[in-house]
């Protein structure tokens, strides 16, 4: 039953956002291409034994992180999930450092202390996720709480999956945010499976409907349409800054790869994968841009060059010093504050358009 | 199972106890013909130029033949005895005594070899237990440490703890009562406190084997080397403070300073064998250890340059203990590049040590004695002060070096000892 949620949305026509210039649209595609290309490269490195541990990716879900993060201002704060690499790239994390992170190098965001997409670059306003999902919903709510207490026009955003909605922290965060009317945007990345568990074993009621029970707005968007996701996030941010409280955005998408590299996904019907492949978010944005006359081929070449250069740089980077394994558990001296991200959306550059 | 096992005979040979050792003398047999013996169990004791040691049986089995009688000296590699091994035992891995006896006696359990190991281990433990002093007293770590530092014989300390246990306060009270003599400035020496000298007329009719060997070595050294001796006075104030602080011996600091000086003057860290002169970069430091009436042995701290004073102290302690327990292995006495002799505890202040061939020098460290000395303050004013002083003596081989180098070397040792920073 729960899979029914996806069908009407995904079949719906793409909703072009009125708030996007051509350069924004190109950037959205660029972020998705970079995410996919980096993850494919990392997967190759994983198969070559160069990436240790497990490997997770967000193939097919690129629009969810790209669209939502694009709507966040530099001073907003993000807790990004492991299938949302595009959000990191939009915030300004260099591709070489992402690969360094996968490779366990000293140049990775966590200097080898954590792997794959388990990171948050504090320099660009991100707080890294933990594996206990959705713990970061509470952290995001807490950041939003501080913004509200200090009367700052900022918001927090976090991503989490369909499986996360079963945990207590989902309830605690939704309730807390609702009670305190916090400027927070919850992005529920409904990718049909939590590891191997399908939606109908996860919940009896579509989680987006639960938003009402907590006293705030819940919207469902086509998670494979990057501009639709952007528009939902932009609107949610506007509500947050206006003091109208949190928003739950359910972005309906599909996890096109296994839970991790070792997962052959045999529990997913082939037809389901084929059906979703037709709605690939990159293909759709590319078609949209070609129609608008953008030079997508040049963009692809540029992105590929960036990935190649980043790979070379990451592979040349040193491994962390083993002696550093016991350092940095505690903060000594002054705490380093979170920095701001890079403003990508043109709306942040044209005064008053978004703020 | 019931067929009689085929016997294999394994030889026990005179071991090579050091590169230059050519022969050895059987001192005692621990097992007789027909006795079962387990692999690694001592079959006999031997004495060589360099070391007295035990010969472990190479396999488990029964002693089939003894070919060399006690007191006989034979070349290295000579067969001393033969052990008959059960044919089914094909490896020389340790097997059990039980296995050996089974094959020698009734074929009660030809396959009991594996099970026998447990019994063997048990026997070893029992034997070790039996070695513990009959007093059976055990001491806590702190009591042992204080007793060692102050040379207290714990068997003399009355205990008031549970079951007469010696507690820390018992030991402190004992020491406070004056039962322990004030420790002299420099008391530590690997020389064992010796019992009162036996009257000469009660001495044994012939010299011991070790005594004879030492004599021959010393005489040969004097005949070979052009021995000269140079002395230097050293203010040991800093060493005295440091050794109390670190709880290690003065010898350890002298050893450390000597090593530093040897690294600066590698010409003294050398061998002269006939025409062949070899200077070494690493220091294998020999420390003379008295075995009381039995004589003297020089175990070697290999790669001593890599050790701190504390590390050296621990190694000296360990080697001295093992020397007295006759547990030194051939490796422990070979390849020394320089030797320190240290008979300091009796108050003698100078000696002319004899070089340990083929080395080219030997350092003698005697008592540290408080003396009035002239000290000069930073303003250049002289005054008399009481300082712990020792005289270090260096015997060196004029064939290998000249007096100036010997003096420079001693000055370097002095500089290291006087410049010591204690922490």
């Amino acid at each position: 039953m729960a899979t029914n949620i996806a069908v009407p949305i995904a079949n719906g026509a793409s909703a072009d956002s009125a708030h996007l210039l051509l350069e924004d649209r190109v950037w959205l595609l660029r972020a998705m291409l970079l995410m996919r290309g980096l993850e494919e490269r990392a997967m190759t490195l994983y198969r070559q034994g160069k990436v240790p541990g497990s490997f997770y990716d967000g193939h097919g879900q690129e629009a969810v992180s790209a669209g939502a993060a694009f709507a966040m201002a530099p001073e907003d704060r993000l807790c990004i999930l492991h299938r949302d690499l595009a959000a990191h790239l939009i915030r300004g994390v260099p591709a070489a450092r992402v690969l360094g992170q996968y490779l366990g190098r000293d140049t990775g965001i966590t200097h080898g202390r954590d792997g794959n997409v388990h990171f948050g670059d504090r320099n660009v306003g991100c707080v890294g996720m933990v594996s206990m999902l959705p713990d970061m919903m509470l952290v995001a709510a807490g950041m939003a709480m501080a913004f509200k207490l200090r009367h700052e026009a900022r918001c927090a955003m976090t991503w989490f999956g369909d499986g996360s909605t079963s945990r207590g922290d989902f309830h605690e965060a939704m309730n807390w945010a609702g009670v305190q009317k916090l400027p927070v945007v919850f992005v529920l990345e409904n990718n049909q499976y939590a590891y191997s568990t399908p939606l109908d074993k996860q919940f009896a009621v579509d989680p987006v409907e639960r938003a009402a029970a907590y006293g705030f707005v819940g919207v469902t968007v086509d998670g494979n349409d990057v501009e639709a996701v952007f528009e939902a996030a932009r609107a949610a941010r506007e509500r947050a800054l206006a003091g109208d409280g949190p928003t739950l955005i359910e972005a309906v998408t599909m996890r096109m790869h296994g839970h991790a590299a070792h997962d052959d996904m045999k529990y997913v019907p082939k037809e389901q994968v084929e059906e979703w492949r037709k709605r690939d978010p990159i293909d759709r944005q590319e078609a949209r841009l070609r129609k608008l006359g953008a030079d997508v081929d040049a963009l692809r070449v540029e992105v590929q060059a960036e990935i190649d250069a980043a790979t070379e740089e990451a592979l040349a980077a040193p491994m962390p010093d083993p002696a550093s394994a016991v350092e940095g558990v505690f903060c000594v001296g002054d705490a380093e504050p979170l920095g701001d991200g890079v403003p990508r959306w043109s709306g942040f550059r044209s005064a008053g358009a978004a703020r | 199972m019931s067929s009689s096992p085929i016997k294999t005979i394994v030889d026990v040979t005179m071991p090579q106890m050091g590169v230059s050792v050519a022969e050895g003398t059987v001192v005692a047999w621990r097992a007789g013909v027909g006795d079962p013996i387990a692999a690694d169990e001592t079959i006999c004791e031997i004495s060589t130029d360099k070391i007295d040691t035990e010969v472990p049986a190479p396999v488990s089995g029964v002693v089939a033949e003894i070919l060399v009688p006690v007191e006989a000296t034979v070349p290295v590699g000579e067969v001393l005895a033969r052990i008959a091994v059960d044919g089914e035992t094909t490896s020389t891995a340790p097997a059990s005594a039980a296995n050996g006896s089974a094959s020698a006696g009734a074929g009660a359990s030809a396959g009991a070899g594996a099970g026998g190991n447990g019994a063997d281990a048990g026997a070893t433990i029992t034997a070790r237990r039996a070695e513990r002093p009959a007093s059976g007293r055990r001491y806590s770590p702190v009591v042992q440490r204080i007793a060692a530092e102050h040379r207290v014989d714990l068997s003399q300390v009355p205990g008031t703890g549970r079951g007469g246990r010696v507690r820390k306060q018992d030991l402190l009270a004992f020491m406070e009562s004056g039962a322990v003599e004030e420790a002299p400035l420099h008391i530590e020496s690997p020389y064992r406190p010796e019992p009162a000298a036996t009257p000469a007329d009660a001495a044994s009719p012939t010299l011991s084997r070790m005594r004879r060997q030492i004599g021959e070595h010393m005489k040969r050294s004097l005949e070979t080397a052009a021995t000269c001796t140079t002395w230097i006075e050293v203010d040991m104030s800093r060493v005295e403070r440091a050794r109390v602080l670190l709880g290690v011996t003065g010898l350890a600091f002298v050893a450390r300073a000597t090593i530093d000086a040897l690294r600066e003057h590698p010409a003294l860290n050398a061998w002269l064998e006939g025409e062949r002169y070899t200077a070494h970069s690493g220091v294998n430091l020999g420390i003379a250890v008295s075995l009381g009436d039995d004589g003297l042995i020089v175990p070697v701290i290999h790669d001593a340059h890599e050790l701190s004073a504390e590390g050296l102290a621990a190694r000296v302690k360990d080697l001295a203990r093992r020397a007295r327990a006759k547990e030194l292995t051939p490796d422990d006495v070979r390849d020394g590049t320089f030797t320190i002799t240290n008979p300091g505890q009796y108050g003698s202040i100078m000696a002319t040590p004899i070089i340990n061939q083929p080395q080219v020098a030997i350092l003698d460290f005697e008592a540290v004695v408080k003396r009035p000395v002239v000290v000069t303050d930073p303003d250049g004013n002289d005054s008399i002060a009481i300082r712990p002083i020792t005289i270090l003596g260096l015997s060196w081989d004029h064939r290998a070096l000249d007096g100036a180098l010997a003096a420079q070397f001693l000055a370097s040792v002095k500089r290291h000892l006087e410049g010591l920073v204690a922490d």
Partner: protein
Amino acid sequence: MTQLTYLQAISSALRDELRADERVLMMGEDIGVFGGAFKVTDGFIEEFGPDRVMDTPLAESAIIGTAIGAAVVGMRPVCEMQFADFISCGFDQLVNVAGKMHYRQGLAVPITVRLPSGGGFSGGPFHSQNPEAWFMHAPGIKVVAPSTAEDAKGLLHSAIRDPNPVCFMEHKHLYRRVKGEVPDGVFETPFTARIARPGTDLVVIAYGAMVHTALQATEDLDGASVEVLDLRSLMPLDEAAILDSVERCSKVVIVDEANSTCAAGAQVAAVIAEKGFESLDGPVVRVATPDVPIPFSPPLEQAVLPSAERVKEACRELLAY
């Protein structure tokens, strides 16, 4: 100097911090209008308002999780668990999110979690626990446990000003029973041990309420000179102070009110065994609560919590050893 109870000292530290630093805020269940289950924040909401003395939903994970979020964007939240026992509901946020944050991404999490802990008043299995060892075992979290009014204030100031997550174990049984002179104003007590009473024959190492038990038990012990070392901080553990006491006294009794296995005192014993072995003149003796939930009925509870009598007996035995 002012004479304050342990509880008043905690309140005083919180009030001083709220006044001194606008980044500080209190979060917890019933701490605002009601003033807290133990009245630690009584009257605070009137002075500081509901934003800074926040009555939260009944959600420990959310209290700690949102505090982490607020902390990483510059606030200094002080969370109150109504009872230390309830920290189990917020364990994940504290251990996985807060504790690992700085190590993974260099991001400090300056939060203080106040944990009213300990038994002795028929609180039963869910209102009497001493969960400090859980957090000593989790990297990245500091754990302090004051025994006196002065330390309650000084350690709390230090905890709030520390850039790391700090579990502040405040012993409920001491709230109104312990009184003492407390310096006025803000002062920071270091996370180190303190000699509660010097001695030479034996040292009792304890923290929190057990410091008082230890002092009482050894006040008159057949003339023996007994030292009492108050650890004050469990993570970091003041190994130098522990080893110094052991070196001087050579006999050690370690008292925990917590369940025995892997308690703070077990770690102290391990440190002594490893680094103080050569100073020992007897076995390291531990007195702790057996590995049972804290029972409700007074005779049952008294049977398991370490009493002055039990500590005294352990000391006598060891002194005679």
